[in-house]
């Protein structure tokens, strides 16, 4: 049975989820324009595939899955992509821009999340921002629920370490340094 009766109804449903999609897309790209493009492409794709959706309750998961696949395609096209899911931190040195951004708490936390591996970041954001259950995340990402749980554990563990490091850096920068003079 087709769920959507007409084109306008599809648009209304997609529009209702647009803010949530953008929030997730931004958390994956950390770039406003890329995130908007990703959401836009998701909307277009969803309109094309609207006939596939059967269950009203699953609109959010369905849209998110489309966006996740588009983002994967996008990442695959980037020649310099390095999968750092298991490689730990990409870069633990704080550049001046990062230091300046720490003045804004949200930007500071986002800069730390941006340093997580892509798969870990996706699981973390789907759970925390998308408010999806573990089983829903497993369905969206097409991975076993155990993998969702282990990735989430690693993501939060790394996040904790990174936040502590950033906090330590910030403390060191604000504290006067003592030096022994002979």
């Amino acid at each position, binding site marked *: 049975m087709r769920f959507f009766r007409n084109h306008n109804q599809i648009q209304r449903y997609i529009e209702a989820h647009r803010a949530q999609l953008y929030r997730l897309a931004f958390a994956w790209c950390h770039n406003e324009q890329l995130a908007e493009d990703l959401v836009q492409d998701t909307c277009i794709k969803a309109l094309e595939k609207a006939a596939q959706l059967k269950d009203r309750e699953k609109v959010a998961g369905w849209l998110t899955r489309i966006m996740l696949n588009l983002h994967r395609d996008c990442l695959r096209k980037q020649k310099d992509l390095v999968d750092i899911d298991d490689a730990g931190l990409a870069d633990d040195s704080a550049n001046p821009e990062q230091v300046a951004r720490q*003045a804004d708490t*949200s930007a500071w936390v986002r800069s730390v999340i941006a340093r997580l591996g892509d798969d870990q970041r996706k699981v973390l954001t789907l759970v925390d921002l998308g408010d999806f259950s573990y089983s829903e995340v497993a369905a969206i990402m097409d991975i076993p629920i155990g993998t969702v749980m282990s990735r989430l554990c690693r993501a939060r563990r790394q*996040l904790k370490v990174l*936040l502590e490091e950033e906090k330590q850096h910030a403390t060191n920068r604000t504290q006067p340094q003592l030096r022994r003079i002979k």
Partner: protein
Amino acid sequence: MNNEEKGSYSEEYLNALVDGEFSADEKAERLKQLHLDPKASREYCQLRSIKEMVQSAYDQPPPAHLRPGKYRRWLPWAMVAGITMLAIGLVFTLPVETTQKGLERMVLLNPDGKGDRPAQVGDEETRIVFHVVNSTRTEAPELLDEIETVLREYKRQGHKLRVEVVAHSAGLDLLRKRLSSPAIQARIARLAHDYPNLTFVACRNTIDRIAVSEGIEVVLVPEAKITESGVSYVVHRQREGWIYIRV
């Protein structure tokens, strides 16, 4: 997820508890068990705090700037409506903008030397949030001096002002009865009484963490209101345009 019965809790279990993977009744029962284990309880608080930080960080992501040509297939009528609204908006708002530009503006700087928000624009209410994150056992008098000076000055000039002091992490010392001196407690009480536009807010996560790690009941001054997460609270205030001062 039966680790809790053995007295040790896996990370997966604690995450599932934080993420609402159990029903409300189940969660309440499991949390009761968890509080018997200080280490696990502390880890649970940390995970909950991390989750709240992530949620707050993306609560209002920066908006994207639309590029022409990209949206032809998506709600094309929106462009026509947008242009019409823009024209109407320009006609009605231009005089207001011109008037505001003429106003003398004062900008408050944060500790990092940043500050792009006017401290006072016309008759608008100024809203300042002091985020106290470090122990103020020695600096509390200076902090309260600063706050009182701002409150007094705005009151004298008849300007609208709202000030919130959010105590979080080690900054909670300021509002703790055991660690704040009687003089400071009396001053907090007097300030709260004299200035209804001043609010003291304590972080529940920090209270829980201290209660677990130190095994004591954290008692606050009666003027302190409690919020679930100090970080989330401050981020919300920043998003709402409050002037943010980190202490």
